[in-house]
């Protein structure tokens, strides 16, 4: 049974329906064939607001701020065009200017997906600072 505009016209709700974007207006009634009053229909109207709630942000807990004499550098290439070249040049530039102790380089296999857990774990365990390039 169609519960759409025809039902609403039967109940005298043309004005209400016209004001509501279709995606935000939903109405149901268990008695499919009943003709009901505007008041009874209004009690069944559910308005859906397509807005996601604000994300709950937990404060980042930085690792102990122990100043280091050398840097364990991490490189995460998201596999976009030229990101590999850019990160290699960046790594060489940083090595020339800073005491880089080690470099862990990783490359995502799919630009559209988050880095695999094993890459995250390795970078988190082996690096002090991680650089990623998203390219364009």
């Amino acid at each position: 049974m169609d519960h759409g505009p025809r039902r609403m016209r039967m109940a005298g709700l043309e004005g209400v329906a016209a004001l509501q974007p279709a995606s935000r207006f939903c109405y149901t009634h268990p008695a499919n064939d009943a003709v009901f009053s505007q008041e009874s229909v209004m009690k069944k109207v559910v308005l859906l607001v397509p807005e996601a709630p604000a994300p709950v942000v937990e404060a980042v807990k930085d690792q102990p701020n122990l100043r280091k004499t050398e840097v364990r550098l991490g490189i995460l290439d998201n596999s976009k065009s030229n990101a590999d070249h850019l990160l290699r040049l960046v790594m060489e530039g940083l090595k020339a200017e800073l005491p880089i102790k080690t470099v862990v380089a990783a490359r995502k296999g799919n630009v559209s997906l988050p880095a695999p857990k094993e890459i995250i774990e390795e970078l988190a365990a082996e690096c002090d600072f991680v650089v990623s390039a998203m390219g364009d």
Partner: protein
Amino acid sequence: MCELRKRGLKTAVILSGPFEGLGKAQARVFGVPDLPLVLIPHPLGGLTLEQVEGRAHHAIPQLVKLIKEQVL
């Protein structure tokens, strides 16, 4: 990168100018609004190696500053 930052790791993301807004929005949505963004001129894709080198020269001083501030 957001996942690494959430673990307390020092991180930075290199991106080109037009993606700054997207980068900030994603960082906020994923819970790390303070994720450092290193800006380089747009574009990066399709450039020659010499042109990519120019982009790297934009990024390196910003990264050196971040690492000195946060790690060394």
